[in-house]
């Protein structure tokens, strides 16, 4: 059975390889360097962050999941053929599309083995070092699709934005990053997935000790009162897609109101979907940075 699949893959690889004598490129992925035989024409993508960055580079995926969850990805991506869901690719539809590259990441990263017989698969998951990894992915896509110049432009724009936000953040005091789940809170430190808010912007943590953990910590409202941060950045886990959630209601209490952040009106509610659905995608990152800049420059 496996042998059949492999034969089919080899046969199709040969069929593709005959006209395309394009130079092989080696790109960096989440699972180490991967060599691609040539410039991919048709790419199927199962990761929202990847779709986001590819669109920013001007590459329209040939196959996408049925729901994209984030509104700003535009018409082109929404019009692409649907080849499964975000959770599970429809292998027959993917095979029917006959892509020459498949991109997975995040929640679809467990599907690599199943997709491998159809076309080369690259895992572009963005881990906890969001900014650095987002840039690495951007560069890799640029290299793979022969859009190095555009990728360099975007990287420069991202760097400029980061610098601008970091400048706006200078001398603004300490920050605490919170995730709200209904009535319950978690705090995330500098080593975590949301840690780039501290590391890239230079906003020190309101409380030391959060920083070694890659995961968050369950905290109480007393903890917020005690740490007394100058800034609170809130991500609402309960926000339905594209809707404002009720994180503000959760934080509307005397203990939070007593903090420096509340008194100076420096509690910032970040749009959640770009952060944890398209987290690390170029457009989503720029959007979050714009939100941060607007808040910090106030």
């Amino acid at each position, binding site marked *: *059975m*496996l042998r*059949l*699949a492999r034969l*089919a893959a080899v*046969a199709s690889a040969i069929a593709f390889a005959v006209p395309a004598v394009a130079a092989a490129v080696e790109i960096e992925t*989440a*699972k180490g360097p991967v060599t691609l035989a040539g410039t991919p024409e048709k790419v199927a993508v199962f990761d929202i962050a990847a779709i986001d960055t590819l669109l920013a580079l001007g590459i329209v995926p040939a196959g996408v999941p*049925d729901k994209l969850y984030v509104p700003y990805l535009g018409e082109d991506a929404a019009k692409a053929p649907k080849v*499964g*869901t975000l*959770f*599970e690719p*429809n*292998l*027959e539809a993917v*095979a*029917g599309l*006959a892509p020459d590259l498949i991109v997975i990441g*995040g*929640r*679809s*990263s*467990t599907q*690599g*083995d*199943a997709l491998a*017989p*159809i076309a080369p698969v690259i*895992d572009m*998951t*963005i*881990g*906890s070092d969001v900014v650095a990894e987002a840039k690495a992915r951007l560069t890799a896509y640029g290299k793979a699709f022969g859009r190095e110049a555009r990728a360099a432009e975007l990287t420069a724009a991202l760097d400029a934005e980061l610098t601008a936000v970091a400048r706006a953040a200078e001398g603004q005091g300490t920050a605490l990053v919170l*995730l709200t*789940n209904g009535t*319950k809170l*978690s705090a*995330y430190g500098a080593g*975590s*997935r*949301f840690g780039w808010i501290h590391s890239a912007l230079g906003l020190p943590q309101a409380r030391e000790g959060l920083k070694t953990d*890659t*995961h*968050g*910590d*369950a905290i109480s409202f007393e903890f917020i009162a005690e740490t007394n941060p100058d800034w609170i950045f809130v991500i609402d*886990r309960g926000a339905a897609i594209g809707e404002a959630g009720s994180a503000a209601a959760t934080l509307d209490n005397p203990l939070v109101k007593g903090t420096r952040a509340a008194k100076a009106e420096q509690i910032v509610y970040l749009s959640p979907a770009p952060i*944890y659905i398209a*987290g690390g995608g170029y457009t989503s990152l720029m959007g979050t940075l714009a939100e941060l800049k607007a808040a910090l420059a106030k």
Partner: protein
Amino acid sequence: MMAVVRAHPLALLALCLLGLGAAYLFAGLGPNAGFILPLRATRLGGMLVVGASIAVATVLFQTVAQNRILTPSIMGFDALYVLMQTALVAVIGAVGFTSLPKALKFGLEVGVMITAAVLLFGTLLGRGPRDVARMILTGVILGVLFRSLSGFVARVMDPNAYSVVQSVTFASFTRIDATLLLIGGSAALAAIALAFALSRRLDVMALGRPVAVSLGLGYERLMLLVLALVALLVSVSTALVGPVAFFGLIVVGLAHALVGADRHARLLPAAALIAGIVLVGGQLIFERLIGQQSTLSVVVECVGGLVFLWLLLKGRVR
């Protein structure tokens, strides 16, 4: 019609499954048959093996426990599997988790689950007959413990890592990997064959311990053997497709309604065939008609649970 069904239920079930299997394999084969046919064959084989494993494990478990409304999944195996996945993602991260060699991961999962089962079933050694209930309760309690631990880890995990956990703790009958199916499937098939061979003795066992012992059945040894088979089947099927709670309960309930429960030689194949029919038929509908291939397990739990409730309320399951 009903008379025919009553007379040859197994033959009819087998025919039905054959038809569904053929439809699943060949319906709507596009130009990509070279890739799609092996893929469908793997999935079909996987569904048949996993379905039969869960069905047989449930029948065996109910026979040992002398109770028609129990399922091995309430013993905390599912919770243990979910805890393993959650802990792995939390410790080595999402990328590390998906980089694990699949055979190693599969071996680890099956190994841990079988070890847990051996420890759990070992509490029965050299004890009285009433201890089966106690062992089941122990399993249930451990399940709650595992769930509360994985709940804590999931609570502080970042949403992106959590989404990876979510994708593997959600049962999917289409995720079956060909290599793992060869390894796990052959072990499962051997266990199923052994269960079929034990049919007669299982019939005696079902009469209850005192009767079975007076009829000269080596009750203790048979019980431990049967539990070992249950452990193997549950571990392999969970590691292949993920946790499924009530599926076994439902197919065995339907098998009881169709062929009665007195003869394992009929009950075991009937349950295995019904499991195959439900999975293949369901997957046919979801994959081809609705285009939502991953949701079958949810619907099976939902609809199956409702069917089982209905059977309970009608007093068909005792």
